């Protein structure tokens, strides 16, 4: 398609707003603690939408509507699994993690928390968890950038390699200097854009089709199995899709939103805002794809994932189409910026500062943090350079990697006093190895999504190794009691 001026202006306005937020945030970012965790000053609304928008990548606007367009209602298992997982994370992890990370030597990253929680003098827990973050996030970020580049290529006719660099440059324009606050505030705006777009499109599309009943009749006439959640469903397939929800407890880019909250008082409100945002957005995405089956019945789409984009072009004037395109960019950018910052913190805080330069000045820390963001972005771009590469397929792998390596460790460390450092280390290693091995095996039970066995074996490893181990030191146990009493006073 040729790009028209109103659409381009809409996009430029959106990018300008992001840049202004980045500049304001940069002025409030004084040290590494601000850069990595925003000095723990997120309010309920920003934390809620930032957690949601960081979590929901371009998949929400492209992949999910595309899957619905192809498979109809049999594709709703994954959104159900995700919504349940996100709720449990808000209900059982948010408040305890916010309290414990501050009680435990004011930990600002996940590896930081693991080391301080178990008073690990050897640094091994910090190093292993930082390596897991760097490996899985570099691929995860790369796949998001590839998604953005394909979008720019298809929307603006931009050369693919150029689109990769342009997409990354736009994200870096506010993330590099504005850090966590810029990422969180832009996530808030991006989350609102995503939400509005996902509500508007299906309503207008169904209205255009002659109403809800008309839409259902047209879809039924094409293929009645599109109206049935069980069509084509297998037990192992349904369990695999629902199991995605297990991944939430170990995603560092979501967990840091809990850690960055101003107060645990904000959790109930943030949880409510976050869940309403997420569920309505998921419903919106589901019905975009569903309405697409009926709307494009006479000239089926070549690429199912373009169903949202096609709707934005055929249903709306160019100004609104520009806003809707900005909403897709928002979904991609809000995930990449948060992942880049977590990866940067693993390099700057967990390797550089903790291992080599314990007495680094604030200025030095900040420079290293920014170089790390830039370096990881460049590696992610280079990984995505070959458009035929399979980097897009690595998202489910990275999600499972974090979910299995960190999820059980996070949950048990918050609720089980007897857990030991060796238990945590065993959990991270067993979880990661299970995901890597399981995903390469095929057939029968091995077709199950690797996150489920990874989560289970990691949990078992933590429990067994901790029980064999001698009990944690008095210092660790006292700190656990302090954190629980502070949580109960809350």
């Amino acid at each position, binding site marked *: 398609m040729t790009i028209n001026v109103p659409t381009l202006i809409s996009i430029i306005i959106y990018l300008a707003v992001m840049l202004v937020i980045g500049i304001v945030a940069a002025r409030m970012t004084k040290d590494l603690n601000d850069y990595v965790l925003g000095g723990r000053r997120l309010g309920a609304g920003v934390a809620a939408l930032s957690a949601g928008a960081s979590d929901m990548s371009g998949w929400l606007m492209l992949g999910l509507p595309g899957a619905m367009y192809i498979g109809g209602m049999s594709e*709703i298992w994954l959104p159900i699994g995700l*919504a349940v997982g996100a*709720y449990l994370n808000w209900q059982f992890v948010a408040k305890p993690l916010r309290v414990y990370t501050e009680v435990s030597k004011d930990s600002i990253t996940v590896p930081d928390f693991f080391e301080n929680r178990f008073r690990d003098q050897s640094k091994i827990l910090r190093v292993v968890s930082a390596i897991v973050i760097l490996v899985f996030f570099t691929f995860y970020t790369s796949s998001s950038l590839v998604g953005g580049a394909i979008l720019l290529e298809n929307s603006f006719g931009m050369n693919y390699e150029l689109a990769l660099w342009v997409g990354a440059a736009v994200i870096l324009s506010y993330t590099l200097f504005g850090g966590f606050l810029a990422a969180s505030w832009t996530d808030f705006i991006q989350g609102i854009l995503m939400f509005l777009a996902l509500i508007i499109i299906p309503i207008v599309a169904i209205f255009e089709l002659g109403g809800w009943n008309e839409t259902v*009749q047209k879809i039924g006439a094409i293929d*009645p199995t599109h*109206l049935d*959640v069980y069509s084509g469903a297998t037990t192992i397939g349904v369990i695999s899709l629902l199991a995605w929800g297990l991944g939430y407890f170990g995603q560092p880019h979501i967990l840091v939103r809990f850690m960055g909250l101003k107060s645990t008082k904000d959790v109930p409100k943030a949880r409510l805002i976050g869940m309403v945002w997420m569920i309505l957005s998921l419903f919106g995405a589901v019905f975009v794809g569903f309405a697409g089956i009926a709307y494009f019945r006479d000239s089926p789409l070549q690429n199912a994932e373009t169903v949202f984009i096609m709707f934005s072009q055929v249903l709306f004037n160019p100004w609104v189409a520009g806003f809707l395109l900005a909403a897709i960019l928002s979904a991609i950018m809000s995930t990449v910026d948060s992942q880049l910052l977590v990866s940067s913190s693993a390099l700057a805080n967990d390797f550089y500062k903790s291992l080599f330069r314990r007495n680094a000045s604030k200025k030095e820390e900040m420079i290293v943090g920014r170089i790390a963001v830039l370096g990881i972005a460049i590696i992610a771009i280079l990984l995505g350079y070959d458009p035929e590469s399979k980097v897009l397929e690595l998202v489910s792998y990275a999600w499972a990697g974090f979910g299995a390596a960190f999820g059980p460790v996070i949950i048990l460390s918050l609720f089980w006093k007897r857990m030991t450092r060796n238990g945590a280390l065993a959990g991270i290693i067993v979880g990661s190895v299970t995901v890597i091995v399981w995903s390469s095996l095929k057939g029968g039970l091995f077709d199950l999504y690797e996150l489920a066995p990874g989560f289970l074996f990691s949990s078992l490893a933590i429990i067994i190794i901790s029980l064999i181990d001698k009990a944690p030191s008095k210092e660790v146990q006292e700190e656990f009691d302090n954190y629980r009493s502070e949580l109960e006073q809350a």
Partner: protein
Amino acid sequence: MEYAITEATWAWLMVPMLSLIVLSVVTYFTEK
């Protein structure tokens, strides 16, 4: 013939999602 989304589909689509929203509202008031 008249097509309709199956009842099981409506149940799977609405029950988990609405339960989560109700839970979020209830816990908002109990924990506020």
